[in-house]
Every structure is written in structure tokens, then in C-alpha cells.
């Protein structure tokens, strides 16, 4: 079957150049980066080069980059590294679960957390951030780009406010890194999370930017890796992959890969379908993500129907069993739960082509028509006809 992958916000394929860069660090250069000898020095140098590359992507100093096992660990390290019992934390209702559930846990251990609403476009109002600040506010955590809609939050304004109030500011940039330019000075953030596999590095590696001078408690206790901020032997092949992916991403920023053109074409084609639309359309967005609703159907069935035809897209956040719950992001934008359930996410990657966009739009049009014809509301009141079946399994 011809398969098209439009779920690059879930994960991306490792680029061949990235894979090649990683390859020597499994069997050939296998040393522990903490070892004194030659083998250790080889991998230490590779880790340092990767750190420099990530620092260039984020416009920070290499010493401010701590490698983690991924975006979730980076978010958790930022949040639990800063906030503790008695503190007040400000976040938004549309964060990824890596932040949202970390904040829920903060509440259980004696923190107060303010969850800021978003408007119909999915945007946090920076004035709301300002109004929510208290003397006990220790941390603001607002994402840079939303994973479901791609909406870009006004992080520079929030960062300015945080700096004026002398409150730590963390931003989850997992869905922004590699898609839009990131400058930690311009954002004025103290902490920023990225994840390797969202930008064509492998799964299982990520990084947290920690501004120099930030008092951060580690979560893992062990050796003095990563300047004692993240104990544990480095995932050298993964880190090398992240470094290479960051280098390649730097070269692509600014629209060189045509993602925005493809995304806009997809949206134009799909908006010809009745009762459809783009979620968060009025807000600035990353160039490769499109969350769209198709009223009168269940997005979960649409995702399955499309997968069976060869198009991989997604809906909402997946829970542990693989079943889908209504999107907290779309409902926070004031969308009815019916429309939230009728929404799916397309996320393009640099490996996609305009031909795939045309192919996908055709499949979606057919699938939406079939689903609507067979939706429960359409079945009610329909005159039933019984056609005898030839087959039997007796």
C-alpha cells in the first residue's frame, strides 16, 4: 500500500545524515564519556560537539544545555527542579501532558498552580500572566508551540514580564524547535525544553536549556554527569544524533523546505469540504501543523479509516491503552466537545511532497463523506432495507 505519513508532530523519521552521524557511536566509538582514557575522550568530544550544535540552535551557551531522555524529562526537570511545596506556579490549560500532569503533581505536594485560559484561537493573554503573579510565584511555564494546533504563544511578551517580576520562566519548545527560530535571549526564558525525535533525531533524547545562574535541583541522583544536573551515563549515540539534527535544522529554518506551502495547500483543499475548518486559524502557527474539524463525525473513526487507506494522521492525546480522549486543548479553546471530537491533526515533515498533499486531500474528502453518511445521527430515521446475505459462517 502507498503510505503517506502526516504525523510528524508525533515523531519524525531519523534523517539519513543523522543516522550516519550516530552509527560510529554504537560499536566503534563506544566509550563512556566520563572515562579518562582514549575511548572516553572520543565520546566526550562527540557529546561536547553535539552540545555546541544544540546551543547554536537555541542561541545559548553550550554549558547551558543539559541532555535528557527526551521532552518529558526536560519538562519535568524544569518544573520539579524549580518549584516545591509552598510555591505558586503559573501555566496554561493547553500545555502538553508532560507539563500539565507535572503541575497536577505539584498541587498534590503542596504547590498552588494557576492554569491560564486561552482564547478561541488558542492564545494565552500575557496580561493574564501578569495578573496571576503573586509574591510566592516561583515559575511560569507556557509552551512555545502547541502540539495539537501548532499555535505559537506570545512567549517573548511573557518572558519580558517574567524577567521584570523576577520569576523563572520555562517554555516547552518541543513542537517549535526546528520549525521556527528560537532565541533564548529574545524569549528571555530561563528554561526551555526540546525533544530529539520531533526534529529528525532518534527517540529517547532531548535537552533542557538552563540559563546560567538558575538554581535548579536535580531529579536524578548519581554521578556528576551534565554538571550534576542530570545523573546517568550519557546516551551518546542519541546525543550525537540530536546534535546533527540541530545542525541540519538550523540550515532549514526560514522556509527552505516548503513546509508552509504544503500545509497551506492542504488546508485550502480540505476547506472545500462542507462544515470544516482550521482550529487556531487566527493565531500565528508553526508552518507544518494543521488541526482541522469536520463536523458530524468522530475524528477517531476518521483517523482509523484514513490509516486503512494509507494516510497516517492523529487525533487528540493518546492514553496508555491507545484509546483517544477528547482534546483538552480544543475544549480549552471553547470548542464544543462534538467539534473537538470531530477534529484531526495533520503535521507535515520535510520528507513530504506536494503530490502527497494532493493524495491525502483526496483520501480525506472520500473518508469524510463516508463517515458522515454512516454517522449515528444519519442512521437514525433512515429507512432500513434488508438485503439477504449469501455468505454464512455456519
Amino acid at each position, binding site marked *: 500500500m502507498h503510505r503517506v505519513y502526516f504525523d510528524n508532530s508525533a515523531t519524525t523519521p531519523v534523517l539519513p545524515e543523522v543516522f550516519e552521524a550516530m552509527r560510529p557511536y554504537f560499536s566503534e566509538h563506544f566509550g563512556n564519556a566520563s572515562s579518562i582514557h582514549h575511548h572516553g575522550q572520543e565520546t566526550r568530544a562527540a557529546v561536547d560537539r553535539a552540545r555546541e550544535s544544540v546551543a547554536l540552535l537555541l542561541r545559548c551557551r553550550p554549558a547551558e544545555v543539559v541532555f535528557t531522555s527526551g521532552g518529558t524529562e526536560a519538562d519535568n526537570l524544569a518544573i520539579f527542579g524549580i518549584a516545591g511545596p509552598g510555591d505558586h506556579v503559573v501555566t496554561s490549560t493547553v500545555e502538553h501532558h508532560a507539563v500539565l500532569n507535572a503541575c497536577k503533581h505539584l498541587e498534590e505536594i503542596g504547590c498552588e498552580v494557576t492554569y491560564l485560559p486561552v482564547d478561541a484561537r488558542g492564545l494565552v493573554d500575557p496580561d493574564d500572566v501578569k495578573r496571576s503573579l503573586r509574591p510566592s510565584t516561583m515559575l511560569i511555564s507556557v509552551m512555545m508551540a502547541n502540539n495539537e494546533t501548532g499555535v505559537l504563544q506570545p512567549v517573548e511578551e511573557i518572558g519580558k514580564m517574567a524577567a521584570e517580576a523576577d520569576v523563572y520562566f520555562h517554555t516547552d519548545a518541543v513542537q517549535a524547535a526546528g520549525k521556527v527560530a528560537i532565541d533564548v535571549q529574545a524569549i528571555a526564558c530561563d528554561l526551555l525544553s526540546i525533544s530529539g525525535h520531533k526534529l529528525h533525531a532518534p527517540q529517547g533524547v532531548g535537552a533542557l536549556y538552563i540559563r546560567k545562574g538558575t538554581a535548579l535541583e536535580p531529579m536524578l541522583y548519581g554521578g556528576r554527569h551534565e554538571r550534576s544536573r542530570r545523573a546517568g551515563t550519557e546516551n551518546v549515540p542519541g546525543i550525537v544524533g540530536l546534535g546533527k539534527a540541530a545542525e541540519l535544522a538550523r540550515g532549514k529554518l526560514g522556509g527552505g523546505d516548503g513546509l508552509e506551502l504544503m500545509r497551506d495547500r492542504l488546508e485550502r483543499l480540505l476547506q472545500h469540504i462542507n462544515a470544516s475548518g482550521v482550529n487556531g486559524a487566527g493565531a500565528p502557527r508553526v508552518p507544518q501543523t494543521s488541526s482541522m474539524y469536520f463536523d458530524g*463525525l*468522530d475524528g*477517531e*473513526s476518521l483517523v*482509523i*479509516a484514513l*490509516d*486503512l487507506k494509507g494516510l497516517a494522521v492523529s487525533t487528540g492525546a493518546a492514553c*496508555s*491503552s*491507545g*484509546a*483517544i*480522549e477528547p482534546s483538552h486543548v480544543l475544549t480549552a479553546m471553547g470548542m464544543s466537545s462534538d467539534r473537538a471530537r470531530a477534529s484531526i491533526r495533520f503535521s507535515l515533515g520535510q520528507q513530504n511532497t506536494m503530490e502527497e498533499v494532493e493524495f491525502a486531500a483526496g483520501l480525506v474528502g472520500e473518508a469524510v463523506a*463516508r*463517515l458522515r453518511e*454512516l*454517522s*449515528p445521527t444519519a*442512521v437514525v430515521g433512515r429507512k*432500513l432495507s*434488508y*438485503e*439477504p*446475505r*449469501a*455468505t*454464512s*459462517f*455456519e
Partner: protein
Amino acid sequence: MKQQTIAVAMSGGVDSSTVAAMLRADGNDVIGLTMQLWNQRRLEGREGMPESVQGRCCSLDDVYDARRVAETIGIPYYVVNHEERFEREVVRPFVEDYLSGRTPIPCSLCNNHLKFDQLLIVARQIGADTLATGHYARVEFDEARERWLLKRPTDLAKDQTYFLFGLTQEQLSRTIFPLGGMTKPEVRDLARKLGLALAEKPDSQEICFVPGGDYKRFLDAYLAEQGEALPDTSGELVTSSGHVVGEHSGIHNFTVGQRKGLGVATGSPLYVIQIQGDTRQVVVGSNEELYIRTLHARRVNLIAVDEIAEPMRVTVKIRHRHEGAPAMLERCDEDGLRVTFDEPQRAVTPGQAAVFYDGDVVVGGGWIS
């Protein structure tokens, strides 16, 4: 046999796994679907609820088993979430039935409102012509009557037609039960031959959302979670002649035919004869008083016939494990049918279903009122 696209409702058990594997082996395009209906950890720890019902659908273990089978036999597999509808159509009515003095059967509600409704819709939406399940029952088209018939399976010990009486002609026309002609040991043999690792997995018996079958604890935990107080349904224990013999702490603690836990000491054994939701009285009496000759079935679904115009001789099952008793079936009003047994039947229980059979054929069924 013509190859079709068939969706299989997979629970992670032997039966539905075997169905998926055999349909696949026959060359059909098979799509595995598991319904996520209830979060097994949702009430964990409330009112002493254990972690989850083991070995039942919707536990992560069972989704894992179903997914592994799908991977082994090489079919696409998806979990679809119907938790909201399950709570509305099955769990809520289950709770309300108990609080009104009835003894509910959630499996029938689930079949009517979830498996053969929502899941069938999803199956058709994603391109399947037919839904297959691991139920032990048979469905076939009767040319003479021009109706789809639901029939008892070969393995009468596993007969699940009692839970399927609510299926409409539309639903039956799109459903197959590939195990209807097999016995359970044959199914396990086939599972082994098809290389399914779970061929020896034990059968599940209990209600999927009630751990250990302890429905009283479930009611407590669910109502506590909902922030609702368990309503006071305490009242009097009375004899059938109206003589008050004691007090009880709530009608949901009783089911018709129950002997233990009445808290009344008399010379002869006492049984629950009737539970009166409106007066909250629990009527107790002798074993003989448990026998009733007529019942009324409401919200009737007819399968083999489109109407009961004339009184009809049938065999009626009044609970899943009831062997069935001969009776006369007739229309008593627009909504209901009257069942008059040849011999009085013990413990006719409101909330359970009365399912009417003509030999192997399910004529229809309704809810005992």
C-alpha cells in the same frame, strides 16, 4: 466463501481472538477493534475497591493481549474509546436499577447500545461490511419469513443468545458469529492450531466493571466518586400478608430469591419474594411463595416475527442460567407482552430479561417489570 472486509470485536480473550485468526486464515481482510469502555483504575482505592478486574476487557492486559494477537496474525488493530457512552448507557442504568430494587444485566445493555450499535457504526465507517464477535450464537437469514434469525449455538453450555435478544434486523444483517457452530473445546483447539499464545487463557465470567462481582462496593465507590450520597432506601421487611417482621438498610442489598443476610430469625427459611421500590418494602416469605406463573415483559424486541398477533407457544428463559420453561406468549398492551408459564417459575426477577425461544430460534425478548 467470498472474501470480505470484516471488523472483529476483540476483547483479548480466546473466543474473539480465535474469530479474528480464523477469518484471517480464510483470506478475509480483517480489522481488529477493541472498545475502551471503562477505566479499570478509575475507582481504585475508593471504598476499598481493588485495582481492576483481572482478565476482563478494558484492562491494559487485555488490550495488550488483543494487540499481540492482531500483530501475530497480521491484521490492523485499533482501540476505540466509548467510555462516555458506556457510562451513560450501561453503568448509570446499572446503578439506578439496583437503587430501584431491580437486578440489572449490563451485558445486554452493552450489546444493544455499544457493541452492536456504536462499534458496528465504526466498523462500517472504516470500510468493513460486517462485524464479527466471539459470541456463541448463530445468525441466519430465513427466506420464507424474510427475516434475520438469531439462533442458539451448537455449544448450548456457552449459549449467549440470552444477552443478544435486543439485536435489530439491521444489526443482525451486518453481524456474524463464527463460533456459533463450534464447541468451546473446539475453539481452544483451533486457537492452538492457529498458533495463538492465549489458547489456554481462562474464560471471564464477571461483569467487566465490577471487580469480584461485589456490586455493593461498586455502588458505594461510584456514588462516592460522583459526589452523590447513597440514597436512603432502607425500609421494612414484610411478609406477603403485610406483617412487618423487621427492618432493612437499603433495597439495593437484596435480590429476588435471596435467602442469606435478611437478619430475621424464624423457624422456617425465608426468601426475598419481591422488592417494592416505591414503598421501599422488601417482601419475604417461604420458598413456595417465590414461584410465579405470569410475568410482564416491557421494551420488547422481536426478532423472528414482527408481531405477536396471536398467542404463541414458546420456551422462556428468565435469567442467563435458567434452562427455559414452556409458556404462552401474548400481547397485553402496546409496550408489553404477557408470559404465562405452564408451571410456576421460581424467582422471577425484575430487571432481568425474559427471552422467548421457539426451539433454537430466538423469537424475541423484553425486560421483566
